[in-house]
Each structure stands twice: as C-alpha cells, then as structure tokens.
C-alpha cells in the first residue's frame, strides 16, 4: 500500500526526508524523539546546518552525532549550547514564543488538525490509555508552525477524536507515509502524494472525506545525499 513497497527507501525514510525539507537554516525547532528527531537532525546534516534543536529535557542547541534514543540522552546535554531546567524550557523558551517550529505526533487527528494522544474510548473507561499530552498542548499553541508526523490509517485519521489533547490552530503540514496534508479553508487537504502513492490509497487510509487540492503535487523522492545522511544517522542508533 505505501511507497515503501516499491521504492528503494522506506516509507519512514520518505517521511523523515519530507519533514526535514520543511526546516530552514534559521528555524528554532522543538523536537521530540523518534521521527521528529531523525528529521530535524537530517536537516541539520543537509540543507539547514544552522537549525537550532531544542529538546524538552532542557537541551538548547543540541547537536547529537548519534541519534538520541530518549528525550534526555547524555549526548544531547554534551552537545548542547546550554542545558536548562525543564520548568525553564517551558516558560522562558517555549511560552516566550522563541521557538518557531514544533514537531508533534499523535494517535488520532481530525480534519481540523486537532490531535489526540490521551485515550482511545471514553476518558473514564478507556479502551486504550495512551501516554498523554506531555509537552504537546502548549507546543501546539506556543510555536508558529506545527508539523505533524503521523502514519496514514483510518484508525489515526478519524472523523471524530475520542479526546482532544492538542489544538490544530497552528498546524502547517501533516507528513504521513503516503503524502502531505495542509490546511485549505481551515480543513486539511491532501496537497502531495509520495512517489508511487495513488490518491485512492490516501483516501482509503483517511477516516473522513479527505479534500484533495486542485494543485495536488508529488513529493520529490529522497535524493541520494538525503538517504546517505539519513542512513548515516540511523546506523548510529535510534530514529
């Protein structure tokens, strides 16, 4: 179903590359572990060496050589310009509006870009208790540009969230394993598909009638340079 089947790169790699391309050299980026960390560090190692990475553990300007496995790896502290307390990261740095990009993931997203990372089912008696919001609710409203990384499936892209953890107001793009979604007239629309992905694949993997942009494009496949940098990072662990 996803591009990974046919291509010489995986769907996760396509996601990471597509996400990294959204970062510019002067971004200050609030990064979570996993794909966001992979994407942000890929950007640092390719077109955006000046991009500042901030992890909620308090590391400002971290430049990990090896990808961190956890938000608080020692590597992050050792390579950071500054390490501050967790209360300070959320008050002086995030709340102050000094961070312009934030990556978020979620278990569910709706057509307005609102996110659920709290529960599946009713809050009082959930079918699945998820980890919870963590930094997401304030990141979602505290940065100018929210990038969401989320694999496409009808269980994730739902008509109705079971719980609204974070608001989609500042969401700029949703990067999935199938394509890219952006807001059109306040509602998420498919604006690009990854190479080898049919629009039908995306519609089938979305739990609501997904708008498709008139100017639908196709994502540039990862370049060799991007894949080399990406795989060099991954072999160093994590991602």
């Amino acid at each position, binding site marked *: 179903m996803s591009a990974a089947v046919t291509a010489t790169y995986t769907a996760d790699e396509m996601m990471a590359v597509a996400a990294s391309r959204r970062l510019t050299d002067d971004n200050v980026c609030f990064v979570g572990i996993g794909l966001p960390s992979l994407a942000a560090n890929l950007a640092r190692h390719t077109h955006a060496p000046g991009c500042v990475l901030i992890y909620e553990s308090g590391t400002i300007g971290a430049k990990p050589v090896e990808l961190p496995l956890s938000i608080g790896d020692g590597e992050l502290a050792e390579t950071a310009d500054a390490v501050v307390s967790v209360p300070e990261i959320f008050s002086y740095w995030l*709340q102050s509006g000094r961070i312009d990009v934030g990556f978020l993931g979620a278990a569910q997203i709706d057509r307005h870009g609102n996110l659920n990372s709290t529960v599946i089912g009713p809050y009082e008696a959930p079918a699945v*208790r998820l980890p919870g919001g963590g930094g997401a609710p304030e990141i979602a409203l505290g940065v100018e540009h929210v990038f969401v990384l989320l694999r496409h499936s009808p269980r994730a892209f739902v008509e109705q969230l079971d719980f609204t953890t974070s608001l989609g107001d500042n969401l700029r793009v949703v990067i999935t394993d199938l394509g890219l979604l952006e807001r059109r007239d306040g509602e998420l629309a498919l604006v690009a598909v990854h190479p080898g992905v049919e629009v039908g694949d995306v519609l089938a993997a979305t739990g609501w009638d997904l708008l498709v942009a008139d100017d639908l494009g196709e994502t540039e496949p990862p370049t060799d340079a991007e894949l080399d940098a990406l795989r060099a990072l991954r072999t160093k662990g994590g991602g």
Partner: protein
Amino acid sequence: MATIAPLCDAVAEHVRDGDVVALEGFTHLIPHAAGHELIRQERRDLTLVRMTPDIVYDQLIGMGCAQKLVFSWGGNPGVGSLHRFRDAVEHGWPAPLELEEHSHAGMAAAYAAGAANLPFGVLRGYRGGDLPSRTRVERVTCPFTGEELAAVPAHRPDVGIIHAQQADRRGNVQLWGITGVQKEAVLASKRAIATVEEMVDELEPRPGCLVLPGWVLDAVCLAPHGAHPSYAHGYYERDNGFYVAWDEISRDRDTFLAWMRRHVVETADVESYRASLAEAVPA
C-alpha cells in the same frame, strides 16, 4: 539537615502510607533504587507525582503501591506503552488508579510554584481541548492587562525523591547533565531524600552542575547504580535493552509479578538487584 543513612532506613523514616510522593528524573537520574525500596517496604495508597512516569512508576503501580497518579506523560520512552499503568487504568488491576493529568508545562509550573511557596502557578496553557475539563486548572485574570491565563495548583509533595551523582559528607548533593525538574521537586516537598552514586570528601564544581545544600534534604543515601535502567551522566549509560525488555516483562500480570518478586521483592538493595539481573541474563 540531611542525615547520611541507608536507603531502607530513609524510606522507613520519611515515607508513609498515603503520602504524596514525587520521584523525579527526566529520563536521566531516575531514582529506581528508591522506588524499589518503596515496593519492598510495601507502601500503600501513595499519590505518585511525576512529569514522565516510566518503568519505576509502572512497577510501583503494578505492585499496588499507588492509589493516584499525577502526571503529564506516562509511557516507555522510545518503546511504547506502560502495561501496568494501562492495566490499572483500563482494568483496575491490581487496583483502580485515580488520575490527575496535566501537560508538561502545567506540571513544571506546579512544581515551580511549590518550590517558591506559592499556592498556584500561572502559565499560557490549557486553552481549549478536553484536558482542562479533566484536571485541576482554573483561569486567572491579569490585573494589569485583563488577559486570561491558566492557573495550576502548586505541587507540595510530602516527600520528594531524587537520584544524584555525588554527595559530600555534609550531605550536600550534586547532579549534572540533564537536571530536569529535580531542584523544584526537592524544594517543593515537605521532606526530601536523595540517593547518590558516590560519596566524596569535596564536591568539585562542574559545568551545568546543580548543588542542593544538605540543609534542604532530610536523608542522603548511597546507592551506586541506583538509577538503573536509567543512566547517571559520567557514571553509566542508559540500559536501552532493559527498556525494550520491560515491554515483554510487564505485558503479562504473572510474568510481571514473578519478575518483581525475583528482582525486587526478594532482593535487599541495588547490589542484589543487579546480581539477580546478571544471573537472569548470563553473559
């Protein structure tokens, strides 16, 4: 003034059933040894406070020590779910777990307010969404601008517990690397315990070090490797394999209970805990 004491004595003296207890650590320096001692001494009805409850809280919950969890993110970092936490919330096993759920920013503001002896913390947060209706948050109005902001009640745990790299003979404690919210957790608490990797004659100041004077602590306990499977910057690495293994160990109730009996309940301290792990996984 801090007394240098064995961990078992410090827990026996300072942590009581029904206490509000915060074992803090933001992926680094997580006080696992202290958590294990709470389990060995069968503390009950604890309200556990932590921004990022992970394996040690999963263990405390699964062993029936907790009646309430105050938190903002409860998962196995980089791995997935906390199965014991989920089982308690989803199925009430071994007992129902009451939740007071915040965002990280809210938890951090609540700790900072507690450390500053203020009854509430103010932040730009809890705007919209379903969380505000599920937690303790109110709105306050700025008397100068009329702006509305969120207010969270200060955290004032009965006991704050942290793990640090070093302490000196006077009980001054030093940690470095990622120091998270540990200063606030200690200063917000009525009583405080620190476990440390090492006792030294003199603390040597280091870049990014955080020093907590002995007079703000009640007990300082030597517990080398007391953060395992978390890490202690400058001492040992994070045991990432254990975090992955925990997913299997904790998935099934009986497997979990057997593991806890063998490696925690039936061990006396960090040393025997680690010895039991070494036996379990022969090199």
